């Protein structure tokens, strides 16, 4: 398939996802905004005023990057995982793409871009909501943007792995509930890992979400529990591994074809 045709195919997959996101905005965009209002109100304003400051900044400013990241991660992940799984398992309209000459890397790019668009869109909405509770300073705007896209990319890729490989609806719900949520909550959304005992600090270092949240927080506040270059290196490695896994699944048909 020539590059120009590949782009049209990519754009078709992406466009379809974005249209869906806007068509059912009350299911795709609104829930995270409502949840973040509650988080900001409870953890930021009510509890935050009692906690005081963390690493020298007011608690609400400390949690803003983490809460934005929480929304970005869950939206990028669930968007790709559920839409791919539904089109594979329920309507079976994934066949529309599988019978076409669209190559695997275009399928991956299309689906992952849908997740990135939704993740970034929700992240920006939550960021706007946060302005009603605090005015976060942005120390490194490009780092903020980079980690916003990186986090969407990683979890859209992870969602695609889940969507391809899941064989029933439990397979789609188990991962977000029992893997994703603990990783996010233990990744330093509400606390600094420096406040943990040394053993748990070391355990936290195997959690990829830690690097996302800290990289993002560095963009806002100018400090991080983990060096920014470490964050970037770990996440790049993770992206390459997830890309390879997705490409292998789609090329071989594992989880897709009988």
């Amino acid at each position, binding site marked *: *398939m020539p590059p120009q045709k590949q782009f049209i195919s990519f*754009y*078709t997959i992406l466009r379809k996802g974005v249209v869906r996101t806007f*068509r059912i905005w009350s299911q795709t965009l609104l829930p995270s905004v409502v949840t973040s209002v509650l988080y900001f109100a409870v953890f930021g304003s009510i509890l935050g005023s009692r906690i005081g400051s963390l690493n020298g900044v007011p608690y609400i400013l400390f949690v803003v990057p983490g809460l934005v990241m929480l929304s970005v991660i869950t939206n990028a992940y669930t968007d790709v995982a559920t839409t791919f799984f539904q089109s594979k398992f329920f309507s079976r*309209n994934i066949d529309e793409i*599988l019978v076409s000459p*669209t190559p695997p890397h275009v399928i991956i790019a299309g689906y992952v871009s849908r997740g990135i668009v939704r993740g970034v869109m929700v992240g920006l909405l939550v960021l706007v909501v946060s302005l009603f509770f605090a005015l976060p300073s942005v120390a490194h705007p490009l780092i903020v943007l980079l980690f916003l896209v990186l986090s969407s990319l990683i979890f859209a890729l992870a969602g695609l792995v889940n969507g391809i490989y899941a064989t029933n609806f439990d397979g789609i719900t188990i991962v977000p509930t029992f893997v994703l949520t603990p990783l996010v909550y233990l990744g330093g959304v509400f606390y600094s890992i420096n406040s943990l005992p040394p053993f748990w600090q070391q355990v936290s270092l195997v959690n990829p979400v830690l690097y996302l949240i800290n990289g993002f927080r560095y963009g806002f506040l100018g400090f991080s529990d983990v060096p920014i270059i470490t964050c970037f290196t770990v996440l790049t490695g993770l992206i390459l591994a997830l890309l390879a896994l997705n490409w292998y699944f789609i090329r071989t048909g594992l989880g897709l074809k009988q």
Partner: protein
Amino acid sequence: MESALTITNLTKRYDTGTEALKGVSLTVPAGELFALLGPNGAGKTTIISIVTGLVTKSGGSASIFGFDIDAEPERARALIGLCGQEVNFDPFEKPLDILVNQAGYYGIPRSVAIPRAQRLLKDLGLDDKSGQIGFRLSGGMKRRLMIARALIHEPKFLILDEPTAGVDVELRRSMWDYLQGLTKEGVTILLTTHYLEEAEQLAKHVAIINKGEIVANGTMEEILALHDPSLSTGTSGYSGGKLEEVFVQLTKD
């Protein structure tokens, strides 16, 4: 004569252990309507699914207009239009969007796809439904939309897996006319159907598959010549058309 589809010694064993295809070899001549017949579970859909890339084969080879489905899958798939047995479009999309998106997967820009989709919807009597959500269409409309979707990229080789299942007689006949028009335009059609009079009416070549093996393959005349009148009456006393008689004789246990 150029062949649209060449299958050599194709085998498929599913993970469940079911041996769906036991060394099937088949050639579909270009520009003709070829009927692949067989009872339920004979292996028809498995062949189609392998050829279109939806199922992985266990052994053998297949090529579309000379393009091997393993070595050049994208070039092979670009030539195929598939109308599957099950309705499998996004039920929340409108017919026009379903067609335009499908064209997009083949690299056709929207500026080309939209007028082409409108023409196809009109040809298949769906133009007044182009803005209606897919799941609200009737069964017959869904089948026609599936055919339109298979044709949106103007394939050289159209595969129709029981396209008229559950469709009323009048609509079925109009679909026959449409398919015959396509073959006149040079489109090769591989048709599977349980309506044997449909195959008898439309197909020049026929293959009959039973339990994963081809039991007859030839021109319609050659297949009908296999008819043995002495075996023609079933236990019910009912006697079908000639092709039906041959089919029953070749596929009975």
